[in-house]
């Protein structure tokens, strides 16, 4: 039927289009690059490329003393810096067999939970930006300012603090924190309700997020997910309840759990966690025990030989520190387990077969921070 030197359409070489969503992109959180093979509007394969923010923190730790290394730990997950510091200090304290006094533990809980609220507000803003609404970003950062003002009078910084030390905290909290927090507690729930009206009840938003990126429990266990990603699929697992640290067993709070495992559930879980964190901070400030704010720690910190792994519930998931000490001033090996690294690996599995717009939204729901992923 056809002549011999005509090219049939089936014989033409064809391949899927490869698009590079490069490190400079308004919507990948930080410098993250992924190469997507797309067929029209559907994604066939995603190949993530990380390492653009690698600073070699684990290697630097082998050349610094324990006290000198502590300010660098802030810079891992810079949206929730105090949680990282808390985990590191708990790890070193476990090696040295020191326990922080009750007042220090309560102050640490206040810091960690306030930081959780601040980090989830960034998530709220970024979620709006992924779907195309510009306003939630500004609203989220506006409310974050109040929390950062509290941190400024308490810890001395707004983004990186160096406040929680080995054995306690660096300084006592001034009484103005109480006034600031009472004002925040009165005004913020009203604003949160309004922001929920803006985004959570919005039909367009619900259509974008519901039934997108559904992840089942078994897959999440296989990939090592933790934090709100795990809780959004119905697994009621929170390290603050399972292995309580720093006095969390004294406080009364619930753990929000999602049902479907889609992006909308993970969003709702984080919004509910903001309210639970406010409960914890209110309880901690009401029952603040008196006493020392730091324990007696030797001048030069030389833990005995041994190794330890301590984990806690960071803002994005499980943060863990594994420290091997040979009795020196410097750690022999320090490994950091971060949630963002595990979650980014899930992107190919979660987003293949969906539209490009959905892949961006799924990445936003994992809430990754590249400082934490690349270390």
């Amino acid at each position, binding site marked *: 039927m056809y002549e011999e030197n005509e090219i049939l359409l089936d014989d033409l070489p064809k391949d899927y289009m490869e*698009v590079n969503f490069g490190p400079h992109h308004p919507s990948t959180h930080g410098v993250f690059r992924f190469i997507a093979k797309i067929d029209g509007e559907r994604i066939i394969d995603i190949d993530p490329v990380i390492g653009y923010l690698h600073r070699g923190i684990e290697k630097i730790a082998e050349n610094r003393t324990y006290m000198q290394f502590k300010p660098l730990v802030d810079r891992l997950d810079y949206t929730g810096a105090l949680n990282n510091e808390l985990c590191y200090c708990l790890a070193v304290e476990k090696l040295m067999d020191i326990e922080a006094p009750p007042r220090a533990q309560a102050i640490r809980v206040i810091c960690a939970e306030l930081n959780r609220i601040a980090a989830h507000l960034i998530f709220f803003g970024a979620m709006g930006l992924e779907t*195309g609404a510009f306003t939630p970003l500004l609203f989220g950062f506006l409310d974050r300012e109040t929390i950062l003002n509290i941190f400024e009078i308490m810890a001395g910084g707004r983004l990186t603090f160096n406040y929680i030390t080995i054995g306690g905290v660096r300084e006592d909290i001034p009484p103005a924190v109480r006034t600031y927090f009472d004002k925040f507690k009165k005004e913020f729930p009203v604003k949160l309700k309004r922001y929920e009206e803006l985004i959570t009840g919005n039909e*367009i938003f619900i259509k974008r997020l519901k039934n997108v990126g559904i992840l089942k429990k078994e897959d999440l266990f296989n990939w090592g997910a933790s934090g709100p990603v795990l809780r959004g699929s119905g697994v009621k697992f929170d390290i603050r309840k399972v292995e309580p640290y720093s006095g969390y067993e004294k406080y009364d709070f619930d753990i929000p759990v999602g049902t479907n495992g889609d992006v909308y559930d993970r969003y709702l879980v984080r919004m509910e966690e903001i309210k639970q964190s406010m409960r914890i901070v209110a309880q901690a400030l009401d029952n603040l025990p008196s006493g020392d704010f730091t324990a007696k720690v030797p001048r030069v910190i030389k833990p005995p030989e041994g190794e330890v792994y301590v984990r806690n519930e960071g803002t994005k998931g499980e943060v863990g520190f594994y420290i091997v000490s040979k009795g020196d001033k410097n750690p022999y090996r320090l490994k950091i387990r971060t949630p963002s690294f595990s979650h980014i690996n899930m992107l190919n599995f979660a987003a293949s077969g969906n539209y*490009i717009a959905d892949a*961006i939204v799924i990445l936003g729901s994992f809430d990754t921070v590249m400082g934490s992923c690349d270390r």
Partner: protein
Amino acid sequence: MVWWSILLWALLKLVIAFLFIFITALILIWMLRKIMGHMQYRRGPRHHGPHGIWQTVFDTIKLLGKEDIIPSGVDRWTFIWAPMIIFVPSLMAFVFLPFAEKIVATNIEISLFFILAIMGLSIIALLMAGWGSNNKYALLGGVRSAAQMMSYEIPMLISAMGVVMMSGSMNLSEIVRAQQHIWYIVPQLVGFFIFGCASLAEINSTPFDIPEAESEIVSGFNVEYSGFRFAAFFLAEFVNLFIVCALAALLFLGGWLPFTNPVYGTIFFLAKTYVLIFAVMWVKSTFPRFRIDQFMNFGWKVLLPLSLANLFVTGVIVLMVDKFRGV
């Protein structure tokens, strides 16, 4: 002697329309930045001029002064002509818009038909920009925009036909005159809603701004343009916004009525247009955007049947009213 005075008069009207368009585009960009700023608890531009009025002028001058970069590997003809072609439909549509009882650049009997027809020409310019940029993001953006604009042309036209049936003519001045008893938004509420959604899709404004979705494909077809070519796309978007809101004000909100005096009529017509523009900017600050398949669903499965039903019901009612009156 007479022919060159006609030519001069026509050229003068053209120049006035041109100037009006540019000044309107500059005012609209300033308005968008201020309104979006205030809706986000912040101020917009403040520095240049009182309340930042000259900010857009300086921005345009800056854009005009930038280096003209043409990437290698582009299709030169399409890349260079796309930003110039995008202005042509807007300018042509502008010539037929009436501002008051007798103030219109050119008055023809089918002005509504002509405006709606040439607004469809801007699809070509977006496709040229998308294809000619030698960039995958631009290609995605251009193809998306072609699909979007074609799908939403039809509900826009059909919802405008309801107004034409009620007024009996396609001349925009006649349509406004026919609204003396009641503005057409009251009987044609559904048509107004459909016309609003469809025209938001035509001008690529949120929630239908998929072709230039900033968070996914980083400005879509705009991505390789810089300098005055980008300024052309940017200004053309706002000129389209003005034209579409002016059309909505003429068709549904009664144009310049109840003032027949040219000065008051123009002011009232512009006031109505700017109220509609405020509403569009309000929506732009609030809503997220649709996904591509969701809004094709919305266009073809919701708006099109709704507009056909609107047309049917309007036709039946007009026939019955005419029969009742014995015409």
